[in-house]
């Protein structure tokens, strides 16, 4: 530990010891006890008593044929914001980022965005049509697709409107709502390039149309170059078949690009020589700038990060002492190279520790450990990717784009931590 009494960690150390003494009365053990008195729990289950689960047999195998989280985790769910949209069939639910750790999102918690509700596709009746500027138009069944050479890749999938409600200022109080339109899972699928080779793409081909089989027949135009580079036709997430809400049985995976391109329940791919300019690439998913001009085809998701713990839905309950800041960083241009963390609203920065796999275009976990002395904090994180792109402040972003964009808000998030441990979404000067 530090010896300088001016160092905030020194004061923290003393408070730490004091509260330990109060809680336990055992001075010799004080340093290793939690700063917080143990105030929760049923004494009958706590030592020296023996709880029921240690005495009586529990349920046997097979009772939970498909496992679910503990009943005590019932609060860990996707949530939606009712006032945001006119109906739940064309709406969004958000990943509870503050309840998760590591780089992978559990399947049942991946955010949802539907334009015509969840299509319940019977896998026997699933067909993928590939036609247009090809030598041989083809139809594939699900079994056909599963017979093809396949790859496994973890990628983040972020809605272009993630943080879209925050352009004009701090609005939603929780990283689930400010940043929860993202998930990152391990996909299994066929490189689209292999499918295209089967049909034989004609030399004048430049664009593809991706069309979903849902009640919105969602479409996007995809440049052929991206299709040949790393786009996947995926049918598994984290090993199991896609969930219906994530496109069962087959969806597009367009690494690093806005989630709207990742067409779910993909039923048709048409090869053409120009973009289609459909609704989701004109009326929506175009970025209105100051002055009334709009940027289109803004596919790449710029580097971004957020501290997930603490955050408004996950306060610092221990009040002071050893503290781990946990967060996520990602970039649509490649790997996260570095994440910096600020405790004082962006005046001073320290390098965070990247932990776990640092995959290309996937969520990367970071941590920053410190002794909190209980003072108010203005927490920020700043991602930098392998191309040298540095996540901008919200002010820098508004300077170049105005506040009417809705999409592609990757500005630095600030959380205000009070001495009580309570956390609020704020904006700072």
């Amino acid at each position: 530990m530090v010896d300088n009494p001016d160092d905030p960690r020194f004061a923290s150390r003393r408070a730490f010891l004091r509260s330990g003494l109060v809680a336990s009365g055992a001075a010799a053990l004080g340093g290793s006890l939690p700063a917080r008195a143990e105030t929760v729990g049923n004494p009958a289950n706590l030592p020296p008593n023996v709880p029921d689960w240690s005495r009586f047999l529990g349920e046997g195998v097979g009772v939970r044929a498909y496992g679910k989280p503990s009943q005590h985790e019932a609060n860990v769910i996707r949530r939606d914001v009712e006032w945001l949209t006119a109906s739940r069939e064309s709406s969004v639910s958000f990943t509870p980022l503050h309840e998760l750790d590591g780089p992978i999102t559990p399947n049942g918690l991946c955010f949802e965005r539907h334009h015509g509700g969840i299509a319940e596709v019977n896998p026997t009746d699933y067909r993928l049509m590939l036609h247009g500027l090809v030598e041989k138009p083809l139809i594939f069944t699900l079994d056909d697709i599963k017979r093809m050479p396949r790859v496994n890749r973890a990628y983040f999938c972020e809605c272009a409107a993630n943080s879209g409600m925050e352009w004009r200022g701090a609005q939603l109080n929780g990283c689930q709502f400010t940043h929860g339109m993202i998930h990152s899972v391990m996909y299994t699928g066929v490189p689209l390039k292999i499918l295209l080779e089967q049909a034989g793409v004609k030399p004048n081909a430049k664009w593809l149309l991706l069309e979903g089989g849902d009640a919105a027949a969602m479409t996007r135009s995809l440049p052929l170059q991206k299709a040949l580079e790393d786009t996947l036709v995926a049918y598994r997430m984290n090993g199991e078949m896609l969930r219906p809400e994530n496109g069962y049985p087959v969806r597009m995976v367009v690494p690093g690009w806005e989630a709207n391109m990742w067409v779910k329940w993909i039923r048709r791919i048409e090869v053409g020589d120009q973009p289609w300019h459909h609704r989701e690439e004109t009326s929506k998913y175009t970025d209105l700038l100051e002055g009334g001009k709009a940027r289109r085809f803004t596919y790449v998701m710029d580097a971004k990060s957020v501290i997930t713990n603490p955050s408004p839905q996950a306060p610092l309950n221990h009040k002071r002492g050893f503290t781990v800041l946990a967060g996520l960083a990602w970039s649509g241009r490649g790997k996260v190279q570095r994440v910096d963390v600020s405790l004082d609203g962006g005046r001073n920065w320290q390098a965070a520790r990247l932990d776990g796999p640092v995959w290309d275009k996937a969520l990367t976990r970071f941590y920053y450990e410190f002794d909190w002395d209980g003072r108010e904090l203005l927490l920020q994180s700043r991602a930098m990717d392998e191309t040298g792109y540095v996540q901008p402040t919200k002010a820098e972003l508004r300077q170049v784009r105005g506040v009417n964009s809705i999409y592609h808000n990757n500005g630095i998030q600030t959380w205000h931590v009070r001495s009580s441990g309570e956390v609020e979404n704020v904006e700072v000067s």
Partner: protein
Amino acid sequence: MSRFLSFLVTSGLAAVTATAVAFAQTKPIPQAPRDLGIGRVATPEEIAGWDIDVRPDGVGLPVGKGTVKAGEALYVERCAACHGEFGESAGRWPILSGGEGTLSGHDPVKSIGSYWPYASTVIDYVRRAMPYGNAQSLTNDELYAVTAYVLSLSDIIKDENFELNEKNFTSLKLPNEPNFFDDDRETSEKAFWKKEPCMTNCVSESAKVVGRARALDVTPEEGKGPKVE
């Protein structure tokens, strides 16, 4: 796989190679024969049933016709409940008309008339996704009629007796088309690429809170989420 890689694999260095490849994550795509013999040829009838897309140059327009007048009756019956009688929108459903001249203001209204660049987007979208909850149910003539009426709400078509069809469709132009431009972030936002981001004393004054989410109080309450079994 290159000859060099093949050599490594066969000579017992496979593990090293595999690790490097796994972390790169993007390579290699398996080398499949160009013809795997998987899948079958799609027939013209199958393609015709699913190929419903329309482009700005008119490619994909179905054969059909409909007037503004005929479209009005259909619109009132099947569209107005959500979009409003004049495209002004009911509640939070998408607005179809109005908002001209608002795009550079504080509260931009992005309607077909004020924002959308192409009329073809309207007929394509109605054809694939509308009416909401009963998609792909309109006949081609109904499709042209409703599209004509919707475009008339933004004065793109002014005569209620105007008959829209696949031959005259591409003559319709939307006023905001010139205001769209391709993604240029890598040049216009070049300043976001930095060699060394600032680490200490980056701003002289200490940070002040200038906005708070709680002031708005629009966040869903904890425990009020959808029920879970």
